[in-house]
């Protein structure tokens, strides 16, 4: 019996010490732990950390990177286990939920000056309680990537693609261009007689899936340039508007492009294996809407000569693109809160953002940081004006933000299958009215 007790004791002891070790790993009085998901950005932030450590002798920043999907799972688990990082890169889509769960530290005492950043970026990170929970770090917009060779073969020019317009009736010059870029197995183009839409060799446009509740790189440039908004208010709205006629007619037209054979169907898209950039890279699609965070991926694809154009002008007479910004947030139970605040203040500073910009991998939130990034991209021979113009040219373009509301995770859980049902299974768009009712019921709780 004694042996048994000893065995159990030893096991319990090893369990306890094992847990303790796990919890204490990498945190301490002079270390600030920091998480991010984009591996491309790692060197830029390591450079920032160096500058920070020089300014704050004795403090060290420990950066951990993990892929997008694992990142959120791990972060969730870390909140529960009490092993959360001091500071982490935050996304608007998750912000509402983290605010609900009360796991973020207010950053009011950092005295973030909204006007020091590109318009709208700082304001998004204020919760319904009026406190700030994120310090702006970068932004991104969406544009049309295209295969230069295919565009040339189709007899189209960069100027033409830069000046496309669309409408939900006949699709305008945008649909004409996409149709013309589509080629079937017999070499017939999408706008030619005898085009076989069931045997398409090259789609005019790659598919990025059904778009969930935001359609960031799919239908959102179209619904927004038709004058539609996600919710009744810009921030913390209480009603979603997926039941709107405008929204439903535009989405119907957009997914209808797949029925005409111009847009790759849902079945061509596997998130893990075959996202939009892979369809363009493999020559299966001539163009794709994608975000600024994908610039280096597209331009880094071997054998692909890529160009970019802004989103097409819509019925409102303006182009529209989502302008989404990430932020750095501090966790409520951060072990090194003081160090964390210093690090976030540094991350939000012009100095760090200029450093990050100089890597030409992302657009930092401060105007100087953005300029540094544009210059760095230029040095690599990449023209990023399709992404920056919507931000600077307010006359011809409108930017809008990711929907920020309560119950963001529930909205996603309902809209993710509902949009797939429309795109993949051909369910009528009017079904979205029911989904919208369910969402608003949850929001009205």
């Amino acid at each position, binding site marked *: *019996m004694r*042996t*048994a007790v000893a*065995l*159990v004791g030893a*096991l*319990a002891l090893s369990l306890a010490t094992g847990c303790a070790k796990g919890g204490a790993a990498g945190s301490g009085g002079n270390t600030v732990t920091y998480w991010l998901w984009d591996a491309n950005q790692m060197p830029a932030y390591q450079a920032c950390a160096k500058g920070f450590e020089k300014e704050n002798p004795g403090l060290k920043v420990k950066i951990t990177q993990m892929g997008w999907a694992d990142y959120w*799972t791990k972060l*969730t688990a870390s*909140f*529960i286990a009490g092993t959360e990082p001091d500071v982490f890169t935050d996304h608007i889509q998750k912000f509402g*939920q983290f605010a609900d*769960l*009360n*796991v973020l530290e207010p950053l009011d005492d950092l005295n973030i000056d909204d006007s020091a950043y590109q318009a709208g970026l700082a304001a998004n990170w204020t919760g319904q309680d009026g406190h700030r929970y994120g310090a702006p770090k970068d932004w991104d917009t969406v544009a049309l990537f295209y295969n230069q060779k295919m565009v040339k073969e189709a007899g189209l020019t960069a100027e033409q693609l830069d000046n496309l317009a669309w409408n939900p009736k006949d699709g305008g010059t945008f649909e004409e261009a996409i149709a013309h870029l589509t080629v079937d197995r017999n070499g017939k183009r999408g706008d030619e007689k005898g085009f076989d839409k069931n045997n398409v060799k090259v789609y005019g446009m790659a598919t990025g899936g059904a778009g969930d509740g935001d359609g960031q790189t799919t239908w959102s440039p179209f619904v927004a340039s038709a004058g539609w908004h996600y919710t009744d208010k810009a921030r913390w709205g209480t009603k979603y508007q997926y039941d709107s006629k405008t929204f439903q007619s535009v989405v119907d037209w957009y997914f209808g492009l797949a029925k005409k054979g111009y847009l*790759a169907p*849902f*079945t*061509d*898209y*596997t*998130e*893990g*294996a*075959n996202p939009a950039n*892979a*369809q363009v890279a*493999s020559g*299966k699609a001539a163009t794709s809407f994608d975000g600024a965070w994908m610039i280096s991926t597209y331009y880094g694809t071997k054998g692909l000569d890529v160009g970019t154009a802004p989103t097409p002008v819509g019925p409102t007479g303006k182009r529209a693109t989502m302008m989404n910004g990430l932020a750095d947030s501090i966790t409520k139970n951060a072990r090194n809160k003081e160090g964390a605040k210093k690090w976030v203040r540094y991350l939000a500073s012009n100095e760090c953002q200029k450093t990050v910009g100089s890597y030409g991998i992302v657009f930092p939130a401060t105007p100087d940081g953005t300029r540094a990034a544009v210059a760095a991209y230029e040095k690599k021979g990449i023209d990023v004006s399709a992404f920056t113009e919507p931000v600077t040219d307010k006359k011809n373009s409108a930017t809008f933000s990711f929907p920020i509301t309560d119950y963001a*995770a*529930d909205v*996603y*859980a309902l809209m*993710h*299958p*509902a949009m*797939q*049902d429309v795109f*993949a*299974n051909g*369910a009528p768009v009017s079904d979205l009215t029911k989904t919208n009712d369910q969402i608003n019921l949850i929001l009205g709780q």
Partner: protein
Amino acid sequence: MTIASSSPPSRLPLGGAAGAGTKSRTRRARSRENQGDGRLAAVFIAPAMLGFLLFLLWPTLRGIYLSFTRFNLLTPPEWVGLDNYVRMVHDPIFWDSLTVTVEYVVINIGVQTVSALAIAVLMQRLTQSAVLRGIVLTPYLMSNVVAGIVWLWILDTQLGIGNEIIAGLGADRIPFLADETWAVPTIALINVWRHVGYTALLLFAGLMAIPNDVYEAAKVDGASEWRMFWRITMPLLRPVLAVVLIMTVIGSFQVFDTVAVTTAGGPANATNVLQYYVYGAAFGRFQFGYASAMSVALLVVLSAITVLQYRLTRAGQSDLG
């Protein structure tokens, strides 16, 4: 001709009257030894028991408790009575995911059991090669997630080598994992591919326990392989087959990883199996109370199916002796 039932049990080498004498002589000594064995057994069982209590029994009880609460993991649970169960009964997605799960289980278990049985019988009757047995088992050495990702790449509509071959043969590409009708059967078959070798090996072990002289007797009587399969193999394999079925059905109902890496429940909710829905409710929406209620429902369904299977297949009894 019913060979199995006509052969008298006493002919089978399962211990007879011969050993009875020696047994009684040493019984007292044994029982003292047995006491020592008991203690030793307790020591050996202790770690597993600790694991059982800590990682199985306690979480199960706590899960049942949580199913009566509203709980987001970060704030204390709040008692809501039967609310979660009421919501579950009225949740069309829950019923839909239960249907999807059953569809998956039927295809998965149906195909898997038949093919595993075929492989096992072929191994028993045709070859004793250890290399071949090893090859049959290889997919099982791969993790479910890796198997899922590999098949996701192979079956991708546009870029997958599987679809390239189909297109090369002049047929239309098949959106195996992106079409609502194909997705569930595809996932079921991916898991058949991974598990069939293991299942076959279990059945093969069962077959090895069937005495060869039964087959020899049948051969002498002029029975064909087909007839021997139905009259000898199947009846004598029944207890093993029943246990294998119970195990694989339980495992099949808990399908999660393959879905998570290949379709994430889509398109729409076509592959939203119960475990995946539970996971999404818990770790996506932080509704741990509701997720617990659905888990309890799965526990009840599985228990009922297991008891039913056990009864129907008489898994506890053998026709052998």
